[in-house]
Structure formats: structure tokens, C-alpha cells
């Protein structure tokens, strides 16, 4: 009954004045659309930053040597050479660990045919391709038997390919001299582009870590261990499990400091993301101000409407409408105006976001909670700004209202 006595008259009244209702809604439409577009751009930017960081590897954890103190001098991170491939094998046995790869890296001059080039050579495990989500573009990645055989095989990054083999269709099968040792090219890596820090990630040669240790560095230790956790949600537990394992394996007795450190890239991604989120909220609040301006437009029109329909209100009261019924009718009208405006605003905002991504090639994404928030806020604006005119209508004296010209 309440539904019947308020909702129907409210919608009938709005439909009777279509042009006016549309113009009043426009304020709300623009407000909501502005919120949706700014949030869509902000969220799109944040997600693309996170994606580019995530491209470093899925659920990546990096174990690096820590600092050691010798004769009172602390070496700084990386000073300790204590991480071994055996540590990596032990970590691989931990629950929640998907893959582990040791990394032995060195910067050196490489030669192929008449060309030479200064690049990074990384000794890694076959799992590295999976950990970094970095497939080969041609040929193959080295496998476990290559590692065991300390094979002289190499997989080249795209930058190295263009520098060492310019104009050649495929470098596979060719030979590359690394520190005087010839390595056979068995594959090339797909291009990754620049890292989040602006480094050319394709300027690299990957070889089996055993070959790097045995034939290039001559050391028993590695520069770091890259670990991939099975699930992003487990990353913290895996990290502490690795810490506990290495403390045991390296026989570290507190208060002795750890000779290693464990970091994950998710934390870095989150930091970058939260900066973007602050911007997004800031922009959305500015847009929300226009929503409030739209609400004032609703109040203005509702006041006009109440004055215009004074006789109608008087008649409704004369035939027995209680004050609260009149209040509900006008409040419903205001809420209907602003929530319908809100829904249209979401549609317009979504189209705007689409336009931005098509024309400006900015990544956009509309998060659903924000859609609900924007529409809900629009309805709230309707209640807030509709209450005063509605109460004014309900407080009218029926005799005077009927006499109103």
C-alpha cells in the first residue's frame, strides 16, 4: 500500500515532466559519470603498474646473500657468499614452493663472429623460464640434463640477438664466446621490454647455472635464489618457511644476524599500487563534489515542484492522505530522480571509460564496488536534498493548499 501510494504517484509525476526530470537528472548523471571515469582510469593505471611488476615473475621471492662482519667491518648486503645450489634444492622441497632457480650473474664481453657486445650472463636453472614467465621465442630452453652435463649451451635475449647476429634470420646453432668459452645457441627468448626500473631486460644471455659456476666464476656459491610460490596468498608463509630453513642450514645462532635476506616482489607491487590508489581516491572525491552540486539541483526542482503542485497536495490531503504519505511521495520522487540519474551516470561513465581506452589507449577498468558506491551515494544525495522539500509539502495546511492559485 505504501509502495502504491508513493512509488506510483512519484513516477507518474516524473514522467509527466519528462524534459524537466531529464535536466534535473543531468546533474547527477554528470557527477556519477565523472566518478566512474576517474576511478576507471585510476584503477586501470594501477592494474597496469601491478601487471608490469608481476611480469618479473609470478609470486616471486628473491633470496639474496646478507651481510657478514669480518674484523668489525660489515660488508653490506651481498657481502656474504653463502647461498649454494643445495640451498635451492632444499627450498624446492618446502610446501607451497612451485619452483626454485639459482642465479649466477656476471657482466662480461661476449663475441660471436665479427661482433662483440658487453652484456649480462646469467647462470640459471631450467625452471627460470617458468619463474619469470618468460618463454622462448625460438629453439628451446636448456633442461636438467644440460645442467647435469655442465653443457656449453646458451639462450639469448632479443637485444643480444640483434647486437651479435644483425641481419641473420636465426642464431640457433651458432657459437658465442663467453669469457673465451664457446657456447652453442639453442634458443632465443621472447622480448620482455623494459623493466619497471627502466632496464632493458632483453640484454641478457642465459646459460645453465652449473656451467656458469664451473666454467665462468669458479665459485661454489650463487648470487641469488629465485623462488616462485604456488599461490600468491601463500607468499608470506613461504617466505618465513625459507627464512627458517636457511637459518637452520646455515647454522645461524641468534643474536647472530642472518647471512641472507628474503624479499618478495608483491610487496613492491603493493607499494606502487597504493600510490596510484591515493591519486584515484583524490580524483574521485573531486568528482563527488559535482554529485553534491547535482543534488542541489534536485532540491531546487523539488521545491519548484512542491509549490507548483500545492493544490494537488491540498486535494490529496482532503481525500485523506496523511502527512507522512505526502512526505514519502515527494521523497520517493527525489530519490527516483537521483538514483535513475545515478544508473544513467554509470552507463555514461562506462562509455566514457571505453572511449578513453580506445582513443587515448589508457588502460581502464571499472571496479564494481565503485559502481555500487556511486549509485548508492546518488540515492543518498536524493534523500538528503529531497527531504526538505518533501517535509515542506507534508506540512502544508490543506485549506490553504486548496485555495492556492
Amino acid at each position, binding site marked *: *500500500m505504501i509502495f502504491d501510494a508513493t512509488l506510483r504517484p512519484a513516477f507518474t509525476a516524473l514522467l509527466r515532466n519528462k524534459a524537466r526530470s531529464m535536466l534535473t537528472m543531468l546533474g547527477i548523471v554528470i557527477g556519477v559519470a565523472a566518478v566512474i571515469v576517474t576511478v576507471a582510469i585510476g584503477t586501470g593505471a594501477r592494474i597496469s603498474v601491478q601487471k608490469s611488476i608481476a611480469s618479473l615473475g609470478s609470486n616471486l621471492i628473491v633470496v639474496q646473500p646478507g651481510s657478514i662482519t669480518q674484523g668489525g667491518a660489515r660488508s653490506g648486503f651481498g657481502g656474504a657468499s653463502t647461498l649454494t645450489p643445495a640451498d635451492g634444492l632444499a627450498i624446492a622441497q618446502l610446501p607451497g614452493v612451485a619452483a626454485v632457480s639459482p642465479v649466477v650473474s656476471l657482466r662480461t664481453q661476449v663475441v660471436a663472429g665479427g661482433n662483440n657486445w658487453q652484456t649480462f650472463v646469467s647462470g640459471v636453472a631450467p625452471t627460470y623460464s617458468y619463474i619469470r614467465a618468460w618463454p622462448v621465442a625460438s629453439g628451446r630452453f636448456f633442461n636438467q640434463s644440460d645442467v647435469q652435463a655442465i653443457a656449453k649451451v646458451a639462450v639469448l635475449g632479443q637485444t643480444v640477438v640483434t647486437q651479435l647476429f644483425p641481419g641473420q634470420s636465426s642464431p640457433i646453432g651458432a657459437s658465442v664466446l663467453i669469457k673465451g668459452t664457446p657456447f652453442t645457441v639453442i634458443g632465443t627468448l621472447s622480448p620482455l621490454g623494459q623493466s619497471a626500473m627502466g632496464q632493458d631486460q632483453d640484454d641478457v644471455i642465459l646459460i645453465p647455472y652449473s656451467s656458469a659456476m664451473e666454467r665462468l666464476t669458479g665459485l661454489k656459491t650463487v648470487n641469488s635464489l629465485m623462488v616462485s610460490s604456488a599461490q600468491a596468498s601463500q607468499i608470506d608463509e613461504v617466505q618465513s618457511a625459507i627464512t627458517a630453513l636457511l637459518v637452520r642450514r646455515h647454522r645461524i645462532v641468534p643474536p647472530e644476524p642472518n647471512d641472507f635476506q628474503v624479499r618478495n616482489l608483491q610487496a613492491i607491487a603493493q607499494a606502487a599500487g597504493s600510490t596510484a590508489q591515493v591519486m584515484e581516491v583524490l580524483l574521485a572525491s573531486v568528482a563527488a563534489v559535482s554529485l553534491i552540486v547535482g543534488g542541489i539541483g534536485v532540491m531546487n526542482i523539488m521545491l519548484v515542484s512542491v509549490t507548483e503542485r500545492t493544490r494537488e497536495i491540498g486535494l490529496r*490531503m*482532503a481525500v*485523506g492522505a496523511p502527512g507522512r504519505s505526502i512526505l514519502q511521495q515527494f521523497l520517493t520522487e527525489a530519490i527516483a530522480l537521483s538514483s535513475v540519474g545515478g544508473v544513467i551516470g554509470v552507463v555514461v561513465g562506462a562509455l566514457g571509460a571505453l572511449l578513453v581506452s580506445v582513443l587515448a589507449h589508457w588502460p581502464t577498468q571499472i571496479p564494481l564496488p565503485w559502481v555500487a558506491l556511486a549509485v548508492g551515494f546518488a540515492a543518498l544525495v536524493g534523500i538528503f536534498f529531497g527531504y526538505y522539500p518533501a517535509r515542506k509539502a507534508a506540512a502544508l495546511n490543506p*485549506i490553504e493548499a486548496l485555495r492556492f492559485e
Partner: protein
Amino acid sequence: MEPVVDVRGLRKIYTLGQEEIGALAGVDLRIDAEEFVAVMGPSGSGKSTFMQIVGMLDSPSSGSYHFEGRDVSRLTADERAAIRSSRLGFVFQSYNLLARTTALENVELPLLYATHPVREREQIARAQMQLLGIEHLAKHFSNQMSGGQQQRVAIARALVNGPALILADEPTGALDTKTSDEVMALFGELNRERGITILLVTHEADIAAYAKRIVRFRDGLIISDRINDQQRAA
């Protein structure tokens, strides 16, 4: 049987700024069921104020008002609205039909506030229009009807909730003589054939002549109250 309206010592004083204006100065009147009473008087005689109080749009400053035996002189606005919605019907000079609304929807309006379900509402409203012979106007909008037709729709609206009393405030004030006579004949017929109690307010003698009883107001008091032995019937 309880009288429909029973007022004793009814007074109404308005305050306009510093000045107090007495609109009613002590009115006693009793209207029984099935009566057709015309209230006459010049402007400022208090007849409109009287109708507003009897119609429960306003409350008296002092005195008592019993409606169907119940003291209604001290009710709140919402309590009065509830009685209006179920026991009273209004007919106004300017019809007061809702703009851009069909005749049927106008007739349904009082039922909306008397908690009738939608389907039932339309049925009751249609039946009432049929009784008045205006069912063909059901889908007409206010601006598509003549004054006489609009007033008939307004009468159907006043009757739709089966009221104990119809209050007609200058119902022919905006109509020509011929249409006025038709509308007044309709009131007479409703009173005679359906036993509907009517309180008519008018300042025209030939309109009041349709009533069975004529009450004259002057300066907030009743100056005459007599049975109309020359009742017009169209």
C-alpha cells in the same frame, strides 16, 4: 440513530498579526443521516469556516463536534485525515481534479489512502462512475472534459469511499445555469434515491433551493434554520 454531525457552541478565532478575527461565534447544528442541508450566507458569514471544520480540514477553537457520535474536535491532523479518507467526500467549486490524470484515476484517489488493493480500487471506481452514468469518461483527462463532466467525476470521487457525508463547497460556482441545474439535480437524486447525506455551501438562493433544509449564516452565527418546502428537483 446518531446524528451524522452534531456541533455545540462551535467557535473559531483566527489571529492575523495582532488582530483576532472571530469566524464562528458559537454555532449549534445537528445534521441527521439522509438530510440535504444548504448553508447560505454572504462572504465572511463563517459558512466556509463552518464547512472546513465539519469537513475536518480544520479544528474548532472551542465548542464540541461529534461526528457519527464520536468527539472529533480534538483530533490530530493525521487522525482527521483517516476519518476524511473513509467517512467524508468533498466536492469543490474548481473540481480539483489532478492534471494529466484520467477520470478513473481521479475517482480512485481516495481509495489509495484507504488501503484498498489496486484491483479492487479500479473496480470500485468504475462501479461508482457507472452509477453516475459517466463510465464513458473513464480514460478522459481533465482537460478533455467539460466543466459539468469534470464536476460529475469529482462527485464520483467524493462518493467512491462510501462516505457518511458529502461536503459540497459552491459546487456550481464555475458552471453555467443549465449545467448547474443538472449537477444540482444529481445531488438531489443521490440524496433521495441513495439516501446520501449532503452539506451544501452556496450563496445562491436558487442553488440552495435544491436542498431539503436551508441554514443561513451571518457574522459567524446561524440566523435562520428552516425546512425548504419548495424543494427543486430539476
